[in-house]
């Protein structure tokens, strides 16, 4: 699951896959702005067939939190 999330992030944020690590966040990734964050949400929802709540959307603001939120939603 983490590999897939990294792949999706690398495409959405237009960055190399190895830049996506536990430290990845809007501070370290240039294209991780509010618009691309929403693009990430759309891409993750489509791929994993899930729906995030508004709270989840605004709170999962770095790589670690994204993975945690997906796990909480039962994504394996």
């Amino acid at each position, binding site marked *: 699951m983490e590999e897939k999330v990294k792949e*999706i992030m690398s*495409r959405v944020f237009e960055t190399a896959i190895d830049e996506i690590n536990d430290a990845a966040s809007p501070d370290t990734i240039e294209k991780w702005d509010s*618009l691309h964050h929403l693009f990430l949400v759309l891409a993750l929802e489509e791929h994993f067939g899930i729906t995030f709540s508004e709270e989840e959307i605004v709170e999962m603001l770095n790589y670690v939190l994204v993975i945690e939120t997906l796990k909480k939603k039962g994504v394996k």
Partner: protein
Amino acid sequence: MKNVGEMQFSEVLAAVKELDAAPPDSAVSYKIAFLRNITADPIVPYLKYLCYRDCLKASVYMADFNIIMQEAVNPESGLYVGKPDIIVVALLLELLSEPLSRRFAALNAEQIDGEKSRVIEFLEGVITNIRKNSRSAILVHSFETPPYPAFGILDFQSHDRQTGVITAINSGLSEIASRAGNCYVVNMDSFAARLGSDRFADQRMWQVGKIPYTREAWKNLAAEYMKFIRAFRGKNKKCLVLDCDNTLWGGIVGEDGPEGIKIGKTWPGSCYRDFQLEILNLYHRGVILAVCSRNNEQDVLDVLDRHPEMELRREHFASMRINWKDKASNIIEIAEELNIGLDSMVFMDDSGMEVEMVGRLLPEVRAIHLPKDPSGYAGLLARCGLFDSLVHSEEDRNRGRMYRAEAQRKVFQKACDNVDDYLRSLEIRINISRADKFSLPRIVQLLHRTNQFNLTTRRHSEAVVSDFAGSSEYDVLSLQYEDRFGDMGIVGAAILLHGAEGSEIDSLLLSCRALGRKVEDLFLAECIRICSQRGEKHVTGIYAPTSKNMQVADFYENRGFEKTEVKDGASFFRFDLEKAAIAPPDIFKSVKVEI
């Protein structure tokens, strides 16, 4: 390129990034600009991808959020700077009028009227300013009527509640669009209905990021825009080639016999009947129909000519290939007979094998596999939008009949030996006139569709041609052809630009159907005569080569023009009016020139 339906959003993002970095050589630049009071960015990757599939390299200008009138009125704004091909106006009523969208139940009649007028005036202001400042085609979203309106079930019972008022605003918008010219409405209610309001609107994304629609909706909306873009570029498909067995009727006529096939008002024949009615719709819209079937010819003709329940008859088909040859060869023959490009054809068959083979051997043909269940046939055809055009001229209405007449001419031609004698016997009547509001749409259609006999292939928009027609510097001419077999309607167009000393032929084109009869010689002779009568000293002809118009490379040179130069790939020719003239051919029964 993969079908966008098989790709996830992040895949599309990656694909577009790669294509932007290394676009195909053949991709033509296409500029799209957005005015909006919503976040519309999610549509951009889908739109760019679909554009690449149509061999377009799209660049998108997104005006700032809710900066509408300021961009529209300022001729130097970012909206106009790049001279976009189309300008999309994507507005939600929510930000234009909170009272009408969120506070409707509290309003009295006066307030409703006031808001309604204000919104319509705003739209009028935006569109007329865009029209004044640019030649771009305009695509404007209509306003969605809320799926759960302010008065609930009562809302739908009269025209003066929320649904009625928004509908009235949309009517106003349609009128504004039609008056502006080259401006078209995207019907968002119909679009939302097809998706279902739950799959269309995204409340969370709206609240969090002002993105009103779901990802799926954006994907479909991009496809909807492409129907318009294809129509603007004249890339809508022109011909539908159909299989017969289990396509036009249920069963196999060679085995079940004409009495055994399923076609009629009861199931399962009703599925095929509905499909035939949908095909007939296209016929009347001007789409050319052809049959490509593996059968004994007589078996199929028996059904077309004599089966009482058939809606489609032999007369509806401009070409038929009913034999045991492979379908790819047959389709090539059909294209040659009809004188149309493979890339303007759509092929439909219930057999996956046939569709796959045609798809592989003739990649320019759009080969579509009909679904397993025939009750889905009519819907598939209606949904595909491949034939969508923004013009429906008299020509379109009569196209099917004209192809019949052409087939009869060909039979007659075999009997005559001498070419001129044959042409004289056709009793051709030509009418050359100045463009008027009736002939203008057809002239524009010709400018966009004609590829082979087209000297400059300039795809002027309706707005531009209309300007030319109203200007004293230009002559916009139509040529109408009739002979003893029938009236072909307007088959030629010319645009002449007159200067202080000389004239230039901006456009000169003739539909393939009218070639081989010296009509082009007559047209050129008349254009030259018009320039001469104005006192011009010379006429300049231009040949701009494309992959489809090589046949006219020598056209001017062979008729007394002198080649003067080659610039940016185009060849220029000069006809000296003081030294020469062109005699029109004398094979015509009558030539009327109404200028």
